[in-house]
């Protein structure tokens, strides 16, 4: 019993300590923002690696999600003779929730894990230590471009997810199920509010981008410099990022859409 309490205490303390280190790293990252902007070519390279290379998975996933939404929505709405609202249903679901959340989860699984593994391996192979001894700060040279690239990429990916998802819903709803094209688009145009729905969705994805990118770079930087340590850190990145996205989504939704 005492051992169990001791273990819980020990785990809690190490969680608090890790949270503290993550906060300190976040502050360091903020301070290195001007330097990162000056070296914009490093940022562009990372935007390509974490953003552009995540695009295929986002497009494919969004297409299927949009089609599933349209199919499920049509089957329910048609019972009430409300299939004319299909466009609105698809658009609201994607802009408010599914676009930011699923883009965040996919980004965490694809780019977040890759970032952690890359930084963790650089640590394990003494590349970060080597940089420090060359008087180059790894936080601004390695971590900051990756963090900032993640922060900027997730909202753009979420927008892309939403757009492609709506297109998927359109293909299925209009071309396959026979909903009128004009009705599909006009319901969407009338029901979707740019500030309330689109901007709030974008804001959500920005917060998710900060969370996922911070978790990913921190886990890599804080990883134990062994193969097992890097593996554990990569797994933790995916798990913690996903949970953080879902928890933060609930908090933001409750604040934004009261």
């Amino acid at each position, binding site marked *: 019993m005492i051992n169990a309490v001791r273990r819980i205490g020990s785990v809690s303390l190490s969680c608090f300590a890790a949270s503290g280190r993550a906060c300190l790293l976040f502050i360091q990252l903020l301070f290195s923002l001007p330097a990162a902007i000056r070296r914009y070519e490093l940022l562009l390279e990372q935007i390509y690696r974490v953003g552009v290379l995540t695009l295929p998975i986002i497009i494919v996933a969004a297409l299927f999600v949009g089609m599933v939404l349209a199919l499920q929505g049509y089957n329910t709405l048609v019972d009430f003779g409300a299939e004319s609202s299909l466009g609105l249903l698809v658009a609201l679901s994607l802009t408010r929730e599914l676009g930011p959340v699923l883009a965040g989860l996919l980004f965490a699984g694809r780019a977040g894990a890759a970032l952690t593994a890359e930084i963790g391996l650089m640590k394990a*192979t*003494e590349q970060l230590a080597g940089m420090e001894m060359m008087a180059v700060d790894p936080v601004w040279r390695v971590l900051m471009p990756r963090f900032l690239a993640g922060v900027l990429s997730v909202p753009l990916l979420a927008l892309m997810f939403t757009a492609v998802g709506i297109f998927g819903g359109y293909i299925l709803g209009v071309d396959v199920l026979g909903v009128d094209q004009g009705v599909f688009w006009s319901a969407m145009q009338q029901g979707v509010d740019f500030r309330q729905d689109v901007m709030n969705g974008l804001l959500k994805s920005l917060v998710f981008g900060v969370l996922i990118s911070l978790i990913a770079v921190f886990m890599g930087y804080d990883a134990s410099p062994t193969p097992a340590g890097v593996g554990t850190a990569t797994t933790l990145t995916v798990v913690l990022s996903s949970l953080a996205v879902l928890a933060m989504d609930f908090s933001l939704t409750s604040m934004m859409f009261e």
Partner: protein
Amino acid sequence: MAIQEDSTAIEPKSSNLSSDTENIVVLTDIHLKRGGKPVLNGLSMAVPRNSVTAVIGPSGVGKTTLLELIGGRLTADKGYLLVDGLSVPDLGRRELFTLRKKLGMLFQSGALLKDLDVYENIAFPLREHTGLPEAVIRQLVLLKLELVGLRGARRLKPAELSGGMTRRVALARAIVMDPVMVMYDEPFTGLDPISKAIIVKLIRQLNNILGMTSIVVTHDVHEAMQIADHVYMLAQGKVIASGTPVEIQSSAQDDVQQFLQGQPDGPVPFHYPADEYYSDLFDRTSSQSGKL
């Protein structure tokens, strides 16, 4: 220089903390614990300028830790550490990075950036710290590559290099900013005899040609004795002997001779400290519960 057989007897050329022109590194009574265990235990030593100083001793004795302290990657629990007249533990981050620009370090693994080729690895510090035009960077990189004999390998990736080539590239990178001192962490480990001989030759030659100071941390006695002007031997976290290679080799100390001659048992015991063997073997309580 007469051999010193006790760390307390070692006095740096200047115990004054303000400056020391003769010694580039001065460590005085350094204590450091890692994970609750003492690693350095009252270590004192001085590294003269423009010399090759070898730090030898068994694995796990704190040799690499010593380099991490000198480079400011670790801070001692107690003691004084001066590098080029500056007290390293008192330096702010910016000052520490300024000092590091004057130091080079060769890691055991090479620590090359894996996604850059040989040329870009060596150009890396120049690109980060200088605004030199590309043509000048090219000349400097080729100059250093020629010194280590790898000008023809400039477009190879680190994964395509052998262990010896990796060390030579790392060495070229360590000297590309013309440092006043280069620290070598186990530069001979895992190398074939030819590669070892090349690294030995390079360390000595570069030290003489570039007029810098070298600290070589190693447990390869033969190579250390070949190149060093001065040797420190560490054990139990402190200096147990120091002097010229000849003086160290003629030391009468048992622990020095055990290490030099590679004897498996002696002052450094073969067995890791444990309970008495037979009582451990036939301990009924542990045997029945299966506890280790």
